[in-house]
Structures are given as structure tokens and as C-alpha cells.
């Protein structure tokens, strides 16, 4: 079993209302060290065999066409999760 992680973040130009809300809540709980928060999405795609170059290419394509909307989001990382094999 293999696993690919796809990380999606709101584009820098787009205001991130959820990140803004979290940033507002942190200092109220005593976390005053952080000046801003951006909230994105992490997708974990599991496959039968090992993570091959083809699997990574398919994950990249899924990231661009389905998992993100390029108008408001960027795919910032697509990588094999090496810990997945130990879980299997």
C-alpha cells in the first residue's frame, strides 16, 4: 500500500477568511507568538502498490483538476508519504 499527500493552499492574493478567524482566536487562548494564520487542505490518496512516478503524476493531475480550484487555490506539494507502508 502506498500513499500520496496533496497539499492545497489558498492563493496568496486571495483573502483567507478561515485563516483570519483562526488568527483571531489564537491570542485569546494565550498563543501570542503567531502573527498570521493561513488554512489549507491536506489530501491523502491511498493506492494498492508502491507510489510510482505514474501514481505521482496522476496525483498531480487530480490535484490540479479536482482537488484544487486554480482561481482561488494552489497545489503547493505532492509527495509520497513514506510512513504509509508501515501502517499497512
Amino acid at each position, binding site marked *: 500500500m502506498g500513499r500520496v499527500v496533496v497539499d492545497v493552499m489558498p492563493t496568496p492574493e486571495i*483573502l483567507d*477568511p478561515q485563516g483570519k478567524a483562526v488568527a483571531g482566536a489564537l491570542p485569546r487562548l494565550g498563543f501570542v507568538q503567531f502573527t498570521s494564520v493561513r488554512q489549507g487542505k491536506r489530501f491523502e490518496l491511498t493506492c494498492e502498490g508502491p507510489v510510482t512516478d505514474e501514481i505521482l503524476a496522476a496525483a498531480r493531475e487530480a490535484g490540479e483538476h*479536482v*482537488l484544487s480550484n486554480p482561481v482561488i487555490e494552489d497545489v503547493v506539494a505532492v509527495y509520497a508519504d513514506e510512513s504509509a507502508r508501515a501502517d499497512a
Partner: protein
Amino acid sequence: MTRIGVVTFPGTLDDRDAARAVRLAGAEPVSLWHADADLHAVDAVVLPGGFSYGDYLRAGAISRFAPVMGSIVDAANGGLPVLGICNGFQVLTEAHLLPGSMIKNDHLRFVCREQVLSIENIDTAWTRDYARGERITVPLKNQDGQYVADERTLDELEGEGRVVFRYSGVNPNGSRRGIAGITNAAGNVVGLMPHPEHAVEVGFGPDGAKGPRTGTDGLRVFTSVLHALVG
């Protein structure tokens, strides 16, 4: 009688109100099911509001891949009038029939209010019964209603007169340039965030000039398409 399809996805909420608006406008509403690619020979299509697929992934993102959407995209590119309201507008942007996207309201809260809109384009299939510059009042209710697009796209929309509805008075969700609704270049596909289908019958709509709940400003969206189809 003119047949107007109203699509139901899992999680659609306003399909029955949209069908009622179609009937009050003088057309026959035809229920279309998300999993059925057959458009049943309708003359126009309404994608109603709600939370299709629970807004999972992104609002409208999963609905875009429903079998019925493939047929609607093809038909829309061939000139079929298509109206997307609220979540339906989000589906139209995800399906690339309209540019831009919607993100969470800038103030982070759900908004539900009677909203004044100015009509900026009366040449679309869905707005020809209005007057240019006319102000109408219809309900607005959304979570992800902040219309966004890059500056170039916004300039194009403005330059080509493709902003159809603009928020008047207040901008209720932080939408870029106060945009409430837009059209494609051909004028047959229109999407808007507010709900004209909730302002079509005395007794059930927003407050109007004749008293509480007398507002029926939304009805002409639906009569417009009838006139566009016979004209």
C-alpha cells in the same frame, strides 16, 4: 408550453421554490436529476441553491462532475439558457461556464437579508424584462458568497458589460467590485448569489412598495427567459 428544467443534486434546497417560480412565470417546471444525463427536451435550465454534496471539497465542486452537468455544459455552449442561483452559481464557476469563484463571506458569518441589487445588463436571457439601472430587492442567504476573480478577469467582465447584478447600498459578503451576478459572453448563462426565486409571490417575499412581504422583484428573471425563448 415552455419547459424549464430544475436540477436536483444531493443537498439541493431550493429546487421546489425554483420550480414554483417557473410555474408562476407561466412555464412548465421539469425536474432534472443529477444522475440522469438526459435533459428531457427542456428549453432552459435552472441550477438552484442549497448545499450540494454538503459543500464538500469546495461549494459546487463535486456537482460539477454529475452526469447531468456534462449535458448542461454542452447545451449551454450551444446556446441553451442556464441560470445558476447561489450554489447553482458556484456550480457554474466550477464547471467553467462562468469565470471566478466564491469563497467564505469576508465577515465570516452566514448572511440572510433582504438585499437591494442594481440591474446592470438587460441583454441576457434572464434579465430582459428589467430596466437598466433598476433597483430590485430579493433575499440573500449564503456562507460562501464572496465573489472573487483576478483583476484581469474583473476588468474583462466590467469592460464587456458582463456584470449583470451588483449589490446596492451595502456589500454583504465582500464580493469584488460588489458583483452579485455575471453572464457569459453570449448572455445565455447567468449566475447570481441572491435568490430571485424567493421573491415571486405576494405573501411570501421580501417587503415591497405595497407593504410587508409584497415584493415580487425576482419574478421577472423567470419571465425574461420565456420572452427570450419566444423572441
